[in-house]
């Protein structure tokens, strides 16, 4: 009896919290299919659109080249994931399993990068990108993400957890260091690579300041930074704004729902860097 009461309380709390979490998304969807007049009407206040307007979708994709924005965002994410996983797996293995002079000093550099606020890098990074004539390009978007201190840290942890015997056996069988790394050890850290990939993708997708600075051009920028521009231009046209926000976040939400376990684990290992 006591258990039923406490269960009712727990479910009530959790359902109320869930409604609070979902309400903004529901409101975004409902608004995206209303007319502007409906959103400006308060007596009676319109919750559900009378007719689900699809012309907002047409208006938004006519005004903003979402295909291009998606292509830019996906290209940036793919290149950053590739670079981060390759460089971080190599360096993570060396930091975890090889002994060499200068290792501790180099690892200190990795830790320093993780401890300071990222904005401290941005002015010089921007100057470098403009000197290299990479503004308004995919390479400019990828630039600060070609290596990953956090990824190095994460992969080092992953390699440290693997048993030593494996390596010893491989060495006795005559495997060289790169062979041991490539064929024996790194396949065993696949789940950490996935976590790093997801973290890198979500981080790059959410980032706003860097794409705004380095790719101000509408055709070269990412979804997040294009939304910021629309937000400033459209002012009161909320159906269009909500449609744009909806277009930008639905694919990520779908992927998240499909791979939620990997997502939650991948982001939860990020140590507050998101």
């Amino acid at each position: 009896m006591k258990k039923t009461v406490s269960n009712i309380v727990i479910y009530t709390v959790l359902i109320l919290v869930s409604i609070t979490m979902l309400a903004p998304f529901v409101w975004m969807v409902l608004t995206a299919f209303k007319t502007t007049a409906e959103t400006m009407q308060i007596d009676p206040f319109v919750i559900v659109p009378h007719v689900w307007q699809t012309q907002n979708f047409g208006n938004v994709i006519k005004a903003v080249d979402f295909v291009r924005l998606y292509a830019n965002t996906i290209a940036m994410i793919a290149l950053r994931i590739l670079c981060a996983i390759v460089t971080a797996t190599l360096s993570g293995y060396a930091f975890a399993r090889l002994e060499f002079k200068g290792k501790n000093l180099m690892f200190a550099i990795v830790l320093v990068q993780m401890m300071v606020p990222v904005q401290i890098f941005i002015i010089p990074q921007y100057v470098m990108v403009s000197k290299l004539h990479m503004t308004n390009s995919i390479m400019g978007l990828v630039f600060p993400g070609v290596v990953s201190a956090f990824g190095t840290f994460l992969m080092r942890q992953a390699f440290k957890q693997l048993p030593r015997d494996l390596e010893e056996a491989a060495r006795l069988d005559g495997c060289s260091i790169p062979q041991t790394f490539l064929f024996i050890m790194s396949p065993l850290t696949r789940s950490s690579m996935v976590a790093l990939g997801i973290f890198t993708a979500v981080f790059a997708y959410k980032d706003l300041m860097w794409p705004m600075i380095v790719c101000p051009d509408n055709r070269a920028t990412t979804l997040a930074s294009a939304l910021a521009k629309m937000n400033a231009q459209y002012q009161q046209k909320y159906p269009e704004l909500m449609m744009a926000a909806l277009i930008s976040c639905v694919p990520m939400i779908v992927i998240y729902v499909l791979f939620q376990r990997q997502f939650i684990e991948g982001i939860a290992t990020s140590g507050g860097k998101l």
Partner: protein
Amino acid sequence: MKNKVTSRQKSEFIWGWLFILPTMIGLIVLNIYPMVDTVRQSFYKTGDFGKGNIFVGLKNYEKVLGDTEVWQALWNTIKYAIVEVPLSVVIALLLAVLLNRKLKGRGLFRTILFLPMVVAPAAIAMVWKWLYNSNFGLINNLFHIKVNWISDPNIAIFSIAVIGIWSVIGYNMVLFLAGLQEVPRDYYEAASLDGANWWQQLINITIPLISPTIFFVLVTRIIAALQVFDLIYMMIDLNNPAWKKTESLVFLFYKYSFEQSKKGYGATVIVVLLVLILLITVVQMIGQKKWVHYE
């Protein structure tokens, strides 16, 4: 035999450096050099219209100390953090305790609460700006109130902090759930037999045992909150009367460095934030000895 060991050492040295080389070159070029260069720039006044930069020594720092806009931005940032961090941590901890049991729909609740973490803050801010709209927004019309959530200078920063809390409780909760998995079940059973109620168990068992997790979440949340930018940039237009009362330090950094091309002054503001963050980290490292229990 001895020769064999040294050849192994030699190859570990060579491969070790080869393996870390790409990462280290990247970190030095993209992070270490920029860090030093940002600090260097904070001693320069950015020259306008093609003129070179002028060395001004500590002038930028003197100017920052006397700049009411910077002090206001610091105060705004602190107000944001003071609301966002404790509330998001406490709410997340309570939710984690509720979810840390056999419960139908546990996974579903976790998925819903974590959802804001995979949505761009730019999109989240747009939706909340619309929810907060004083004439036609859902919140005012649902509760029949008339609050200028984001244009009243007295409350705008707190309204933005609410979005910050909403965005991050799922993330904090997942970290707490991981910490709670480590707490042995029989502690609670023993406490129940002794007649300890829900609240006493929370205070005497749960919180002390997951204090390392709480500490970690607190440190990372404070550091992240002090860097708040996206939400404020998206919510507050140039003609918003709450503009001055919501600008954060990172927002000022962005404004000076990239909208007004005063990179030297922008660099100074961000160095101040760096020092602030390092100080807080040190204070927390010392303070944790008093209340964090590592096993």
